[in-house]
């Protein structure tokens, strides 16, 4: 089984204060830490577990400038065999990105392509399925379980409300991976150091053979949402408070 995994470096904004730059086109990044997109980490682990079980190779691919290379090194240390970086600014538009990734993947040998279900910064959840379409192979998004069969796989997709649905999909195929599908291993610092010997290929956009692509979506401006409130206390007797809470939960679509 030869598997390609597309990975991306994202800022960790779960808890950090995020500010929009004056230009309104980006956020201030100097004080943020960047790591591999959480979903992609699961995808890499899944690919490596497949390799350990069925043999084959794992190739990790990213589009970005030199500073994103550490996510590739980390993936190599996890057990990937080869890494490819397309040396260009990460495009603002998923369609452009998908075109580039498609062009890279097309020239590789693969049975399976894995993406993260979404990335933690823009949470669009679109790149993977687009690439599948461009490659002309079947896909399944939000995959939380994979069973390898002969020439095909069974993929379990996570649905809302705790239900899963199962598809049988012919190989080659593309899956986007949901968190929790496995337990990603720890990658030690000395492991990352040792992985420096593994091959990391850098391609230019012209190597890949993509010219200019008209983006489908263009950022107009970024801005801060209205400040969130602190805890809103729900008053009343236990029955009244419970009733109010229940209707809030219903209104927010949680129930």
């Amino acid at each position, binding site marked *: 089984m030869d598997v390609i995994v597309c990975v991306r470096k994202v800022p960790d904004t779960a808890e950090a204060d995020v500010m929009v730059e004056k230009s309104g086109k980006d956020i201030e990044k100097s004080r943020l830490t960047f790591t591999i997109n959480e979903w992609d980490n699961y995808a890499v682990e899944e690919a490596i577990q497949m390799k350990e079980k069925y043999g084959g190779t794992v190739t990790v691919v990213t589009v970005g400038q030199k500073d994103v290379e550490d996510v590739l090194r980390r993936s190599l240390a996890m057990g990937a065999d080869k890494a490819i970086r397309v040396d260009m600014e990460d495009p603002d538009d998923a369609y452009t990105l998908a075109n580039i990734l498609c062009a890279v993947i097309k020239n590789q040998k693969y049975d399976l392509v894995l993406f993260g279900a979404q990335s933690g910064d823009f949470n669009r959840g679109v790149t993977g399925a687009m690439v599948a379409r461009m490659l002309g192979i079947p896909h399944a998004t939000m995959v939380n379980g994979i069973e390898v069969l002969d020439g095909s796989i069974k993929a379990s997709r996570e*649905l809302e409300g*705790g239900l899963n*649905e199962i598809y049988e999909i012919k190989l080659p195929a593309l899956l986007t991976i949901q968190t929790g599908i496995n337990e990603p291993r720890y990658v030690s610092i000395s492991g990352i150091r040792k992985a420096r010997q593994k091959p990391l290929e850098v391609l230019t956009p012209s190597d890949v053979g993509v010219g200019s692509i008209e*983006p489908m979506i263009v950022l107009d401006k*970024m801005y801060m949402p209205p400040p969130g409130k*602190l805890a809103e206390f729900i008053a009343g007797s236990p029955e009244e*408070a419970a009733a109010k809470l229940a209707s809030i939960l219903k209104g927010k679509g949680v129930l």
Partner: protein
Amino acid sequence: MAVFVFIEHREGKLMDISFESLSAAQKLNDTVVAVVAGENVSDLAEKVAKYADKVIVAEDPKIDTNNEAYTRVLNELIKKEKPKVVIMGHSSMGMDIAPALSVDLGLPIATDVVKINPEGGKIKVTRSIYNGKVLADYNLKNADTYIITIRAGEFSADDLKEKNGKIEIVDSLLKDEVADKKFVGYVQPVVGAVDITQADILVSVGRGIKDKENIPLAEELAKTMGGVLSCSRPIVDYGWLPKERQVGTSGKTVKPKLYLALGISGAFQHVAGMKGANMIVAVNKDPKAPIFSVAQYGIVDDILKVIPALTQKVKEIKG
């Protein structure tokens, strides 16, 4: 010009997101055309017609709840009817279908949208990015049709206006069965092996639950809400719940849609494991409990009174 709404349904039931999509479509002040595809969907179509100007029903057993089949049916319908906008949920299903349609038809797509602003013939959307800390407006490339998936909970179905549109049944648009991607079936994740990291709703109890005897109260609330019971570390230490249920730095890190903290003070080690939840609601008799500083909603009261009351109310709402 029309706005298409792709109606999601599962096992004979309409999904909530379908009504939210209808609500988003109605706000665009255009003809709302709902698309209901699948097998035996005519009674679903009637429920949808209430809120649409027109319902297109594509009855076809070959669809077999296969996302690829839905994609192909939608593809044909869009080519035929040329709607201005296609709206569906940014749901598991929408994520499978919408990007594929975009590439197949060469149409611009915006996903997980929280606001849609038409500007003349163009469309601008608002997305919430970086963990909801930043909003961003995007312009979509000029096109005949725009594909948009909406975030759940952003377009309230309460705003729906009645339209009572007509139902139009179209011939099967699916030429062949889908060969390379077969729907096998739905499965309920194995019960027994409770995995609190995968639950959408966690009802979590802390030392405030006081007694092992009270655990079933919380268990019932969790069940009623369709959630799972989790806890703080002392509850595990007392042996009232198994280790797998512990949330926190030395337990599990969870990110449910709703985290309901009952009688939990909000110690650092606990909060570190649950602060990533979409919504945190805390019930604690101490208004100064640190848990309230990470909660969006709080009730200051005795959990032993609030839990049964809430169970009752949720039951009423769920019918």
